[in-house]
């Protein structure tokens, strides 16, 4: 009767987006007469932060404060087409569409400002605080608000932009599988420290330590939210969840959260995350997308750590106490492997 410490790791990459019938997203951006912007999308915010990441991308591209941008999604009468929020595509596809739309709107804004300032629009820059000024001459300036009002009431200009980003269809070879599945990949390596009780088969995850390369982290807080929550889901996939615990026997599915087990607050391990940023050449400001991939490395890292702790391989998910006890029995007890901690 002992609790055995184990450490395991896994490394993965993850494709950003999908390859099915082409992968388009659209965005529309327009300003009200006071120079406050609305981004219209049909993308879905599932809690992952689709609205906020679009908002930051739009504000950065327009060169205006983030408070001056709100995102409206998803109404099929006003939001232009988007494939949907899946396949880790939101930030990359929608974000690129927002950039295209926001660039067009910024172009009109700068033209309106140029007309008011009687300068060339190519010489104008934004300060990100609501002002437009001549490059190198901060005193020759106009507010975004004044330029927008001039566009609306004086010049008859529409400060608006349309954007689409399309990854075109890539045919898949029936014979070799040749294809262009996606254009960007995120990466990760994750280490799990856990302990296994050889009496009960219980696994307690003590710590996760990870390095994620996600392109540019467009909003570090939202990245953290994804990585922490995703690892929680990965733990759950590895050790707890399934509606068919004796698959392919289809019985014994849970009917509610009492019967369908997931880790509770006391089961969650601390997670020490390091983020690397290698910008995707075609990503919005280099962003890729941490959405799906952050659950993936946890599953094998847990399985490998269990092997390190007790010397048994469980190749069938989830790794329940029952499976551990049966494997220990077949092996004749725990055989701890080389300590790595």
């Amino acid at each position, binding site marked *: 009767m002992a609790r055995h410490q184990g450490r395991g*790791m*896994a*490394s*993965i990459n993850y494709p950003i987006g999908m*390859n*099915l*019938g082409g992968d388009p997203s659209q965005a529309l951006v327009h300003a009200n007469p006071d120079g406050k912007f609305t981004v219209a999308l*049909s993308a879905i*915010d*599932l809690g992952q*932060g689709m*609205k*906020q990441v679009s908002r930051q991308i739009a504000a*950065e591209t327009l060169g205006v*404060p*983030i408070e001056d941008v709100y995102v409206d999604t998803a*109404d*099929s*009468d006003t939001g232009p087409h988007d494939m*949907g929020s*899946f396949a880790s595509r939101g930030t990359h596809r929608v974000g690129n569409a927002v950039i295209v739309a926001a660039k067009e709107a910024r172009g009109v804004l700068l033209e309106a400002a140029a007309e008011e300032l009687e300068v060339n629009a190519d010489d104008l820059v934004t300060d990100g605080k609501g002002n437009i000024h001549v490059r190198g001459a901060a005193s020759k300036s106009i507010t975004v608000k004044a330029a927008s009002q001039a566009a609306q009431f004086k010049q008859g200009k529409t400060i608006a932009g349309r954007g689409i980003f399309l990854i075109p269809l890539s*045919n898949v070879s*029936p*014979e070799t*599988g040749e*294809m*262009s599945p996606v254009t960007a990949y995120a*990466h990760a390596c994750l*280490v799990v420290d856990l302990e296994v009780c050889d009496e009960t088969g219980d696994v307690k995850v003590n710590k996760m*330590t990870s390095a994620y*390369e996600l392109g*540019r982290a*467009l*909003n*570090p*807080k939202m990245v953290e939210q994804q990585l922490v929550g995703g690892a929680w*889901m990965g733990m759950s*996939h590895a050790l707890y969840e*399934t*509606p*068919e615990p004796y*698959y*392919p026997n289809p019985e014994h599915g*849970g*009917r509610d959260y009492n019967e369908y087990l997931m880790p509770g607050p006391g089961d969650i391990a*601390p997670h020490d*995350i*390091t983020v*690397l940023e*290698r*910008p995707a050449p075609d990503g919005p400001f*280099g962003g890729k997308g941490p959405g799906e991939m952050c*659950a*993936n*490395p946890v*599953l*094998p890292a847990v399985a490998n750590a269990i092997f390190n702790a007790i010397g048994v391989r469980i*190749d*069938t998910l989830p790794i329940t106490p029952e499976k551990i006890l049966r494997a220990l029995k077949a092996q004749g007890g725990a055989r701890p492997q080389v300590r*790595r901690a």
Partner: protein
Amino acid sequence: MLEFRKDLFADERDDNLNVIGKGEQRQDMLGHVTGRTRFFDDHGFGGLLHLKVVRSPHHHARIRSIDVSAAERAAGVKRVIRGQDVPLNKNTLLSLIGFGKDDEPTLAVDKVRYKGEPIVAIIADSDAEAMAAAKLVRVSYDPLPTVFDVQEALKPGAVVVNETYPGNYFEYHEKYDHQKLRFGDVEAAFRTADHVLEERYQMSPIEHASTETNGTIAAPETNNRYVVHSCAQGLFFSLGTTAKILALESNRLHFIGGTVGGGFGGKVDSLTEPLAVLGAILTGRPVRYVLGREEEMQFGSPRGAERHVIKDGVMRDGRIVARQITSYFDAGAYTRLTSYGVVKCVAHMPGPYTIPNVRGDAYCVFTNRVPATAMRGFGVTGVDFSIEVQMDKLAHLVGIDPMEFRILNAYRDGDMKAHRRVAHNTALIECVQVAAQKVNWPLSETARRASSLSGGGGPRAAIPPTVTDESGRIGRPETRQAPPQLAPGAAAPLPAYQSPPAVPIYQLPPAHQPGAPLPNHPSQPAAVAPPPAPIPPVPNPPATPQHGAARFSSVFTRRR
């Protein structure tokens, strides 16, 4: 705890941005934390009706008769909907992008193919009345034999689950019963490998378990349109699916959504939108169709089960020279999105490693269970689990530290991937190095100095002469073991074995302790099957008329 390593790849970034890279609070956060954000179910309507469905208690059965007379007379019931009331009662989700055949009814008519399949919908004044009336529907069944295991389902003579796909497999390119990946010659490489390890991995189904269950509220508008408050993960995807099933022009539907209480892939299937809108059409009243928690967990589509059989050839020095992966995706009774998960899986093989010989065979298999759908990491999570446990076993087998083993085999900028595209923007090695450093995991000097930016390309960028084969022609299960042949365009006859790609010279770390041999997994000699006789080509099956928009598909060669 989260920190950045801004020193890495710093010359590839401009970090002087205004808003990007800042942890700004989300515009929707205050609404979420104060409970004021409106989700689909927070839209009240006067005269709202409630829809519930009658579900099959059998995994597989012929429907002899359906008697709804008592249910129609029950208290509060406004309308009973049956399969014949659905304008186009056969659909497949990806028909919107021309991928796959219509194979799934909204309401079952002659047969049920999984336990929980909807047969009749009841619309009543209240949830309770709809549920009470559902119990009064009398369905008479002839139970049929079932199949639940993917490999059993593929055997000749297996129970046919879904008559649209009589072999129990999705048909790829109208030619094969699976999707292939062929890169180099794994058989030749297995013969020269120092060790060959073949292992089987299984991932069971997984429930999305979102806080908000699937649901829709649909209501007639005054302008001959219907407003639809939807939880869909793809707004226009769900709109298009609903329009197709109900034979409506798309602009008669006004979908509103975008704020969803968790999805993880479980809200791509339009489980509730078509029936809710049909209910609104048939009653002229707003209709709410929301899955209860038990319905969602038992009969809402889960992440499907996956089985991956991985066979690797590895050299004593740790280089993997061949990887073969055979994957079985359990679609359940209908296609939904599993056909695409298979393609995504094949594109992901052999993981983030440069391996000169790779073979993949991935099947989308029909069984008598709840149809599977996408879930976070679709097509990748299961095979990543399998590959990374396999990597741990291989490292153990050759006596190399698992982190060193990853770095040794990691893909680098300029390397050719098995799907025949050059890798760029890679960073696997750096992730392993940073994680190792964080936990004080000792790495050799060679591993610490390795870089994604160098050592790739050159000979590692080559596409090797590749053997292809005709295995798995549709309707010809005996061809699953077909003889290999040199791919068209490959100039030279196949050498017995291609030199492995150049990799930096590897040195064992001094602290390493080679582990004991794996107790249950002895390395196996490469088994080379004698090539069976060639087979004549099989004509393609006749085309089936398809509904839905004519667009392009990456996997169907026929354009509609």
